[in-house]
């Protein structure tokens, strides 16, 4: 329990540090934060009144605490360009990002774990000699480039998938849920998920393979072999179960990491998620929106780091005793 609290504080402090860094980074940007609101027709007095209205006449440290207090209440201000609450905009696109990330990760990890276990079993064969460098190459390829090639082949050339967006124009739905569970949405989701899954499968695959190779030499596997269990039962029932622990932790970390990495995939497929929102906000200098999107991604990252820490403790009891900090 003490350890759980320790990990929580650790991750929360890291998030606070990121938030602080972000506040000062945005403040040091060229131009006042009000640039988009201040009109050339306003005279000096009116501009001053506006600064006061937004609290920008207060000292920096005071502004910082107001900012933190607002954040805790989920208040991130108004988008300069959409003139709507940043929080509303973020919550609108968040489900799209979460669905994209989770679907891809689940597919990637199921495939990666099975293929990794199989490759460990095939150790020393020519399949391994070809497969391992090939998997490394998928990890080396820029995500957006995989997306571009798949788009050209499967969408523009073969015409099997739409080339972007999350739904066909002209379709209307009664609720967001109905939209998400529609065939049209799934059809749009397929290609981005395929791209992301192709990129993500390498890590669980290599991890599973090397864990399996290590576990296969441990005593309980030798024991199972001496009991005369079939090779298949040894692999699935004994070795794989133990080799899976680090993969589960990697999955939780993967959720946090790929939320940030989705920036490029979402742009390639014009997928209306949080990453694409960040890119658009930065390119039009919409500071509050960019800040909000960045913080949302950082929050998911910190949260998933914490979950990974917890999983690590729960799944591997050795950790909670032996590991310090």
């Amino acid at each position, binding site marked *: 329990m003490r350890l759980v609290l320790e990990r929580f504080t650790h991750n929360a402090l890291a*998030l606070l540090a990121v938030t602080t860094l972000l506040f000062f980074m945005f403040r040091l940007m060229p131009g006042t934060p009000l640039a988009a609101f201040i009109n050339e027709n306003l005279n000096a007095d009116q501009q001053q009144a506006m600064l006061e209205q937004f609290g920008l006449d207060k000292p920096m440290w005071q502004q910082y605490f107001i900012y933190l207090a607002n954040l805790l209440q989920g208040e991130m201000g108004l988008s300069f360009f959409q003139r709507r609450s940043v929080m509303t905009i973020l919550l609108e696109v968040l489900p799209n990002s979460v669905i994209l990330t989770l679907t891809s990760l689940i597919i990637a990890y199921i495939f990666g774990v099975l293929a990794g276990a199989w490759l460990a079993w095939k150790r020393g064969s020519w399949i391994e000699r070809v497969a391992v460098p090939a998997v490394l190459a998928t*990890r*080396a390829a820029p995500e957006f*480039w995989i997306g571009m090639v798949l788009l050209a082949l499967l969408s523009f050339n073969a015409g099997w998938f739409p080339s972007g967006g999350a739904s066909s124009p002209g379709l209307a739905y009664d609720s967001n849920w109905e939209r998400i569970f529609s065939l049209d949405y799934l059809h749009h989701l397929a290609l981005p998920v395929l791209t992301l899954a192709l990129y993500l499968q390498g890590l669980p695959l290599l991890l599973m393979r090397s864990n399996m190779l290590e576990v296969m030499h441990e005593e309980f596997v030798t024991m199972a072999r001496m009991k005369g269990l079939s090779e298949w039962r040894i692999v699935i029932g004994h070795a794989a179960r133990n080799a899976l622990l680090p993969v589960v932790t990697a999955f939780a970390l993967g959720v946090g990491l790929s939320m940030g990495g989705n*920036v490029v995939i979402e742009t390639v497929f014009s997928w209306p998620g949080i*990453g694409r929102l960040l890119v658009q906000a930065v390119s039009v200098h919409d500071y509050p929106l960019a800040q909000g999107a960045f913080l949302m991604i950082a929050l998911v*990252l910190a949260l998933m780091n914490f979950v990974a820490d917890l999983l690590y403790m729960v799944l591997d009891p050795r950790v909670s005793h032996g590991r310090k900090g």
Partner: protein
Amino acid sequence: MAERADAVPPARAGWPLLPVLRRMAAMPLKDPFAFAGVLIYLLFALVALFADQLAPIDPMEILFTKAGKLAANVPPGAEFPLGTTNLGRDIYAQLVYGTRSALAVGLSAAIIVATVGTIVGLLAGYFGGTTDAVLMRIADMALSLPFLPFVIVLTGFLGASTSNIVLAVAVLLWPSSARVIRSQVLTLRERAYVEAARVTGASAWRILFVHIAPNILPLSFVYAAIAIGWAIITEASVSFLGFGDSTSVSWGMMLQDAFTSQALSRGQYAWFVPPGICIILVVVAGFFISRGYEEVFMPRLRGR
């Protein structure tokens, strides 16, 4: 197996730098993957060096046909090996010149990451205490920044230049190398030959840089090789998103150009496939080299 035993150089009198360097230079000959990686690096280095000779056409020049019309979207052929862009630029020339900016980005990021990571790791590991705590908390913070979003925000606001991208990549990558190097220093610090140096009255700085640092060198090298790949991928991604340096010819800029000018729907594979293959080759070469060094010098770190 015989090599595994002396994974960490034995305690011998004298300066360990030379033997370590000799072993580092010999490593690629022992590991076929690392050998392939070194070959790939050499090949790209040669292309970057002789770009002017390999591609006589200026990559940004707008070309015209003999009839005086814009040579746009010319399919690959004898005159233009990879065809031309929609604005009549030679794709092959862009690919060749892109090697220069890729290597510049990769190498400068790698040098910064390896230098900062090594120095921080050495200081934190050797001195411990407050120095260690402060440096490692800073590292934790940098590690909790979302990678690409941070680079985008930084380059989006500080200005789209290659040096800003390199800076952002360096800020994000030094902590992982510093952490691993720190833990290696922790074990080296307790070794007999370091103890011996201490007893003979060597100063802390002398022990750190003369006795410990040379043994850390292979690790710094591993992280430099990884950083090259990361920096190139990041530069490509950032350029692709439109925050890159628009004045320099890079593989990322080529991909963005192809994407925004509908090369995908026209099926101009010769435009956007080669830059991606080049990126993969350079990054994979880094993976192979770092794997090779890990296997030979740090057998216990394998699989991490």
